[in-house]
Each structure stands twice: as C-alpha cells, then as structure tokens.
C-alpha cells in the first residue's frame, strides 16, 4: 500500500523521498495511527507531503491506491503485498529515485539491506498487531490489512501465477489516471477515424460513392462523411503491436478500436499483443496471453516488408527491460528487448510508435527516450495530430 502510494506520488510529481517513506514505515511500526484508516491516511499525508499545493494530488493518488486495493477481487491485501517482486520494485526504484537517493540506498548497504530493514520493520509491526487488531483481522475490507505483511513476502520469481498477478496489480496502479490529459477519446474519435481511413486508402485511386456518402452522413448524425470507393483494391497492410497489461490499457484499447473500425479499409490488418517491450513471443488473444504464445520469429517470417508496423504503448519501463537480457518483468528473456525491436524495425522499415503518454511528460521517463532513439525518432503522441504525423511517416 505505502510503497504504491509512494511511487504513485512520485509519478504525480509530488517529491516524496525515500527518507520520508522510511519515516512513514517507522511511524506505522510505532503505531502512530491508532487503528483507523483515516488516521493512517492523515499520517501518510503528514509524512509524504510538505507543500500544501500538493495536498490535492496526494488525495487523488491516495484515492486511487485505496480504490485499487478494493478492486482486486478475490485477492486479499495481504496477498497483494506479500507478492511484491523485489526485482520489479528495484526497477521501479531505478526509474523513480534520484541519484542522491540511490546513493543513500548504497550507503544503507544496498537494496538487499534496505529490503531486509523493510521486512524487519514490517515483521515487528505484524508482531505488535497480533491479536484482534482490526487492520489485520478484517483483510479485504480494510486496505491497511496490507500491513499484515508476510515477512517472507519479498521474494523473486514466485511460481508463475502469483508472480504474474502481483505484477499486474502493480502495473495497474503505477500511473495516475491520465484520462484528462490524453486527447484521443470518444469525442474526437470520428475525426481520427476519418484520418485513418484516408490513410488506409492511400495508393488507391478513388471515386466518390454517392449512395455510401449519404448513408454514412445520415448515420453520422449529419456530420458529412464522404465515402470513396477504391478503383483498385486498397493497398495498405498494417501490423499492429499493442502493449497491454498496464495502466494505459484504456488508451491503447481506444487505439485498437480505432483501427478495427476501419479494418475493412485496409488490405490487411493484423494485431499482436506484447507487454512493455517486444520480446521473443507475442500473443493474439489477450485473454489467453499465457497459454497461446506465438514466437516473434514466426511473426517476423510471416509478413513481408511492405507491411506497415505500428507499435502502441507507453514505452514506460525500467531501462533494464530494454537493454538487459533477463530484464523483462514477467519472464526471463534471453535476449534484450532492444534486439527484438531492432529485428522488427529491420523487417518492416515503415514503422512508427504511438504513445498515449502526453508528449510533455516524455522527458521524465528515460525508457521513452531510449525507444524513441531505437525507432529513430518515429514516436508520436496518441493525439489527433500525433496520429496524422504518424500516418504521414508511414507512407
């Protein structure tokens, strides 16, 4: 809970520091908040926020974290917290902590030591709370039941399902809800569709389809929707790689829906899913992502070079996930993500990356810059103008 809150605050631009997080844990261990969730909320606020301008942001992040715990159906808070994969936490820290804080961790004896300390404090906490303590006793209703922490909970590489579930829960909460900052939404979806359609028809000579236009315009609520029919068959073939399983899912879905809406206009449109970065396998049905994997090599062999490659993802991850073998969050990858990205770009030279993260935030996440480089600057924001630019880059 508090780790998530902590990283959530950092993500939202509230400069909470590691020192403050440790203070918070210490205060929890000393039972400053007496039993109520409200008290714990007040404590976290007094510890992590030092500027009244950030209080509202704190409230939003807290609400999100709190609500998130409730949503995790069938998983008690204890289970969620007990499943924090250390490696993943470390990667998060890599991404969010300042140089000074990293140095501090080193001074404390490194991550292992820090995790040990955390474990110890939490274990003490649990010891103190044995016997009818509300926070632990009512797991599932009290989010602070999370503090009935399993001291052995910080483990790497649990058996698959638990590990995966933990990652997913964390993934869901790593980013604040960016709904209001992302421009591509239901309101302008029509405009976006038209542009995609135009793109789909490029290369094909067209003529006005009068009947079709009348029908479409009526259907559109009077908004003129010109229908063109291709003289020859439409030439554009698209390979869509969608990053799923993260907090950007909603935006990525929007994008996916956009493309499927104009599916008929493309000569071919193929989807594949990946998580965070491209690795040795992808999947086609997100519900069966762990059972029906398709080797990326096979995909590389299947589609010829005239396919246009479109990645959609937030490109936000630890640099490890791009450059190191074994850096992936969900499995052990023998080759770094970068190698797979380059292979794909070599195979389909007409390529772009669409990113739902608002462009003004790109500079804060090193991995976005890294992928921007790998794609040779062909990363575009998932906005109307970004879509336009991307389509132009694909021609």
């Amino acid at each position, binding site marked *: 809970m508090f780790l998530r809150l902590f990283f959530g605050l950092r993500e939202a631009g509230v400069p909470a520091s590691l020192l*403050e997080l440790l203070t918070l844990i210490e*205060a929890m261990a000393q039972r400053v908040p007496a039993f109520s969730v*409200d008290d714990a909320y007040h404590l976290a606020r007094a510890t992590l926020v030092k500027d*009244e301008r950030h209080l509202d942001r704190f409230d939003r992040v807290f609400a999100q974290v709190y609500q998130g715990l409730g949503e995790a159906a069938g998983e008690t808070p204890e289970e969620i917290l007990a499943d924090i994969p250390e490696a993943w936490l470390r990667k998060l820290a890599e991404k969010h902590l300042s140089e000074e804080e990293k140095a501090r961790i080193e001074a404390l004896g490194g991550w292992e030591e820090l995790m040990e300390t955390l474990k110890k404090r939490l274990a003490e906490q649990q010891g103190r709370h044995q016997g009818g303590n509300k926070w632990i006793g009512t797991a599932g209703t009290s989010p602070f039941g999370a503090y009935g922490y399993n001291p052995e909970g910080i483990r790497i590489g649990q058996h698959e399902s638990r590990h995966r579930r933990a990652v997913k829960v964390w993934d869901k909460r790593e980013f604040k809800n960016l709904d209001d900052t992302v421009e591509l939404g239901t309101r302008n979806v029509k405009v976006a569709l038209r542009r995609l359609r135009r793109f789909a028809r490029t290369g094909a000579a067209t003529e006005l389809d009068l009947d079709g236009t009348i029908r479409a315009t009526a259907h559109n609520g009077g908004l003129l929707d010109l229908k063109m029919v291709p003289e020859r068959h439409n030439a554009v073939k698209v390979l869509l790689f969608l990053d799923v399983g993260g907090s950007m899912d909603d935006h990525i879905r929007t994008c996916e829906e956009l493309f499927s809406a104009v599916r008929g206009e493309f000569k071919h449109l193929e989807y594949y899913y990946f998580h965070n970065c491209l690795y040795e396998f992808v999947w086609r049905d997100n519900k069966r992502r762990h059972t029906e994997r398709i080797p990326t090599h096979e995909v590389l062999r299947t589609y010829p070079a005239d396919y246009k490659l479109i990645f959609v993802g937030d490109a936000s991850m630890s640099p490890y996930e791009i450059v190191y073998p074994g850096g992936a969050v969900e499995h052990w990858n023998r080759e770094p993500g970068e190698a797979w990205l380059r292979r794909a770009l070599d195979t389909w030279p007409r390529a772009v990356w669409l990113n739902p993260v608002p462009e003004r935030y790109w500079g804060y996440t090193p991995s976005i810059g890294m992928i921007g480089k790998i794609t040779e600057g062909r990363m575009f924001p998932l906005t109307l103008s970004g879509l336009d630019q991307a389509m132009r880059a694909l021609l």
Partner: protein
Amino acid sequence: MSATEARFSGTATYIATEDLKVAVNAAVTLSRPLLVKGEPGTGKTVLAREVADSLGLDLISWHIKSTTKAQHGLYEYDAVSRLRDSQLGEPGVKEIGNYIRPGRLWDAFTHVSGSGKAGCVLLIDEIDKADIEFPNDLLLELDRMEFHVHETGQTVRAETRPVVIITSNNEKELPDAFLRRCFFHYIRFPDVETMRAIIEVHHPGVKDDLLAEALGLFYGLREVPGLKKRPSTSELLDWIRLLMADQVPPSALKASREEGRLPPLSGALLKNEQDLQQLDRLARR
C-alpha cells in the same frame, strides 16, 4: 526516547482536527519536528502551548525575526561584557563560561519541566522570517539534538528530545533537506462548524442567534474582493467578545446586513483603514 508516551487529542481550549492530532502524535512519537503552516490567525502559535499543556510539559518559545541566526539558538559569546569586566578587574573574567549565553535550543535541550517530566515543547515561531539559510543551519542540531560549544569545549546534548513545533507563514520557501525531516501539517481555514467550536471554547456563554449572525457576516466579509487583510480567527474572536461585552443584539447585525451598513464594531474585524473604506464603499452601493 520520545519525551512522552501521552497522546495529543486537543484540549479544553483548543479545537484540534483529526489530521492535526495525527500529525502532532507522529512528531511526538518519532521525535521529529512538526512544521505547521496556514493563514495568519489559524492557531499555529497557540498550538505549541496547547501541545505542551496536554503533554504536561513546559513550553520554550523562540520567535524568529529577520535578523535571527541559527547560532543565536545555540548560544552567544558575550565578548563585550567580558572586555568590560576585564577592564574593571572582575574576578570571573578568566572563566569564559561566564560569558556564554545559552540560546533557546540549549534551554530546550536541557530543560526539565515543572511537572518533573524531562523534556519540553520547543516552539520555533515563524521560521520563514529568517534568511533562507536558517533552516538548513539548524538541521544538524535538530537531527542529533546536540551541539558543541567551541569556546568551552563542552557538548550540549538533549537527554530527552524536546517536541519541536515550527510555524511558517509561507513568506519563503523552505529548503527540501529541512522539509524531509519534518512532519507537515497545513491548517486549513476552519469551516463554519469548526469555527463555531473554536468560538465556544473562547466564549462559552455566546448565544446561538448572535453566533449565527456573526458567522454569516464574518464569512461574507472574507469573500469581499480586494481586502488587504482578510479577517481571521483571532479578529473574529475579538469581535465576538466585543459584541458580547456591548450586548449588541443579533437583530443589529441582521439590520446592518440587510441595510448594507458596516456591522457594529467592525473595526475589530478590519484593522486596516483602507479595508474599512473599501468595505464602506461597497456597502453604500
């Protein structure tokens, strides 16, 4: 060790919101300073007094001015007195310790409260008045609760860490390193219900209808555009005391509101001549 196991839960004379209680208790339990911000008159300064009372500790106050230096809180070496004494041939002049004047921090580190309890509450009031380096200059001493007196070679150490409460009116940004070591509480301007409770602890006999009219006028006044100094809790408390002493009837407040006149005794609410004129102008329209 922290000064006390007791918990702060407000007092008979101070209305503490839940979040404030938690912040105070965190600071007391972990022996870290509590930084309190908020509009003037929201009870920052009196908080320290109330915390001290409720914990049974004495209060040591250090009011900061623009010329205050961190060193002043530790000790000052009174070279002038020593020079004078040496010219007069005073016997104690050889002993440099006679010319070391302990500051408020020193007092606080070594204080034993009248109740016999070790420790005290140290208030560092309006820290933002001093120059920007001031908070950082105190970091080490507040962290370790000890410092060294070079002149005498002595170390002053707090056996019991005092509860430190620091207030700021937001005149200056405070340094990050300093902020990270504090708990923080922002006192929001009290809502009507809290304000009613505050007034009742100060003026127990106040009549409901008078209070209702007064609060209505007060919150309305705070919304008047262009005021140099919006009236705050302390002005409201003064005003109500005067209204009660003068036995101003609630109907008089009501009438002034309806007829667009300045309320009775409004000088207690608006201390600034310009603000009074501004309000008068608006009232006449």
